[in-house]
């Protein structure tokens, strides 16, 4: 059975999409590779893809993230080239998660070093709309 996966690199990673593509060519498996700005899309038989995924993770354990994709690369039902441009369906979720990837990478790196999560440390949260409203009222009323 065919399988397609996204290989996405975190912003902290030194690995470029072209490095991943080269590594896949070196492996010599029967896999289609499409380079994108966020990583690569790989498509092939399920056994080849799962073996390749294991090899790719070794390039940068904490900064490479892998996700399944429903459609093959270039599928006319999803490809922007065939649909006249616009954001690709699924782009919004990936964009949202890409912002958090460096944090997750640091979490994975800390886990790999065997560190326990910091306890009792206050976290820095963005103020919510209610917080902002309270701040403005306090300041200007």
């Amino acid at each position, binding site marked *: 059975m065919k399988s397609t996966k996204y290989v996405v690199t975190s912003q902290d990673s030194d690995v470029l999409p072209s490095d991943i593509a080269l590594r896949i060519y070196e492996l010599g498996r029967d896999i289609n590779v499409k380079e994108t700005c966020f990583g690569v899309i790989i498509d092939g038989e399920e056994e080849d893809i799962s073996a390749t995924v294991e090899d790719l993770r070794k390039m940068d354990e904490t900064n490479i993230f892998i*996700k*399944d994709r*429903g459609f093959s690369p270039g*599928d*006319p039902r999803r490809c922007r080239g065939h649909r006249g441009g616009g954001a690709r*369906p699924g782009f919004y979720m990936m964009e949202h*998660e890409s912002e*958090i990837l460096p944090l997750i990478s640091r979490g994975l790196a800390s886990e790999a070093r065997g560190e326990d*999560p910091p306890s009792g440390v206050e976290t820095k949260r963005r103020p919510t709309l209610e917080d902002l409203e309270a701040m403005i009222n306090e300041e200007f009323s």
Partner: protein
Amino acid sequence: MVKVMVYPPTSMILADLVERKGHEALVVSKEVRKKVDTPGLDSPPLNMTPEDPKKGLKYAAVDVPSGVRGRMALLGPMIEEAEAAIVIKGDDCTLGCTGCARTNELARFLLKTKRIPLLELEYPEDEVEAKRFVFKIREFLEGLS
């Protein structure tokens, strides 16, 4: 290997963390793949057919919008298959095709009432939270096997 449903079902972070620990992540793209690769009357096969909202009737009543029933036709079998679940709280993370609030409510409700091991979290906003996030997921997944 345990089948772990991730919610949002399109989440790359959760699916990746689950598969790193050797479990199987149940994600919506695998369901879509089955549909778009199976030959049918439509050429190329559609990812959603008029039959799907009818399948969704198992999970939602007929007066519920067809969008909810159509989504449940994909998500429902995954929920039935799930042996554990990791759910992200808050609707900021449900974007694009998972942006239907009623479907999200129903899917989360079905996961909660299924009585399977369930971990509820929020996406981290800083490094400390991220370390806790990764640690909690690791602890949860190690406890499953």
